[in-house]
């Protein structure tokens, strides 16, 4: 393997990691607070979950395509890729945060209320700690999926390891395909392991 190729692999891997971590940060920042709001206003649940569900069923290549003509969010480049990756990551985080909070033992929640906890205290002292594990599972699933989906970002100029894959497909070059696929798979495995470990460490019970 040439050193130029090695350098490309490193650069694109870093770019890939940036795409994924940036998208995941935004997705978590949107999805977790939204899910908390949904636990307080259950009539909103079908609407928001429905939207997130639809986002996830749109084929990824098509979603990138749909975004291109849009003003502000669209166009060619990294920001469009990030918008699409965020939309994909929303559902697992949203759903797991919601489930994690809703499945807190009703007896425990009731005794927290009966002891005079305010809504905020109930959330921070009881609901979020007890939901931590489920929320982290959602983050892990979303991250691993995003690492794979981010390879398609190259199709709209988002960069990342997908650049190798599209180049390899165009020139029927297996080396290039592997140069994109193997690091992506390794990142996914590492993320799965790492986040799994965090999940285990942080779960309070």
């Amino acid at each position, binding site marked *: 393997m040439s050193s130029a190729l090695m350098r490309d692999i490193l650069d694109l891997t870093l770019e890939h990691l940036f795409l994924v971590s940036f998208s995941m940060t935004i997705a978590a920042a949107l999805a977790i607070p939204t899910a908390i709001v949904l636990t307080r206003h259950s009539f909103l649940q079908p609407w928001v979950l429905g939207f997130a569900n639809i986002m996830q069923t749109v084929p990824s290549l098509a979603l990138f395509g749909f975004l291109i003509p849009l003003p502000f969010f669209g166009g060619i480049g990294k920001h469009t890729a990030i918008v699409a990756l965020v939309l994909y990551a929303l559902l697992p985080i949203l759903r797991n945060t919601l489930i994690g909070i809703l499945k807190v*033992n009703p007896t425990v929640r009731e005794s927290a209320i*009966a002891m*005079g906890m305010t809504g905020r205290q109930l959330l921070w002292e009881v609901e979020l700690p007890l939901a931590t594990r489920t929320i982290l599972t959602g983050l892990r699933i979303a991250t691993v999926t995003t690492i794979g989906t981010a390879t398609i970002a190259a199709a709209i100029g988002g960069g990342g390891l997908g650049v190798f894959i599209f180049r390899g497909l165009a020139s029927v070059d297996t080396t290039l395909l592997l140069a994109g696929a193997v690091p992506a798979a390794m990142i996914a495995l590492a993320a799965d392991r790492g986040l799994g470990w965090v999940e285990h460490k942080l779960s309070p019970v």
Partner: protein
Amino acid sequence: MTPLVSFRKVSARIGQKDILYDLSFDVEPGETLVLLGRSGSGKTTALKTVNSLLVPSAGDVLIEGIPTTVWDLIRLRRRIGYVIQDAGLFPHFTVAANVGLVSRLEGWQPGDIDARVQYLLNQVGLPPAQFAARYPRELSGGQRQRVGVARALAADPPLLLLDEPFGALDPVTRVQLQQQFLDLRSRLKKTALLVTHDVREALLLGTRIGVLHNGRLVFLGTRAEFLAAQDQEVRTFHTCLEEKWKETI
């Protein structure tokens, strides 16, 4: 003296279903009033209107003369200890953190909270050195329930609400905890409203007994009055007291 708790023509419903009809009675300071009833009689619902986990559909529950709808709910609930069947302990808190929670919410100093937790764990017969650092999952059912009682007493509330507090325990442990409750009551001079389906428990712990049947209060009186009462539902409970097994031996 104003009654500590006063039910004034209280009705309650859950969803579309009427649970309580026109309930009126007082709980006097220092007494243990036991609400006795079968499953579905509305006794738990009645209890929950006191700390406003449930708002009556008609009538008022007065605490120290003030309707629960007027009370600041956070203040009200921190003045009422609440003990439920399987304790409802916070699984992610240690025993000490569970017991010290209300004191902490009330903004006590850490040293004062520790001292209070030690005192209360000793009061319920759980040596702090051995139990304070444990998690609820590391306790037996009886120990969990003792922690539940200690937690309810944490901020020294004038009133205790107990919902089938000893219902999930084995008979030996139940008798131990009932004795401990009597002992605590005479030492701490608390007022209590206790809900049970166990007629023996009602007679053992209640200074007065109220019987609920299909959401209505059909009897309210002392133990002696309870044993003499002729009401149909009260007599049903009398028959539970007859020790049938003696005849078969």
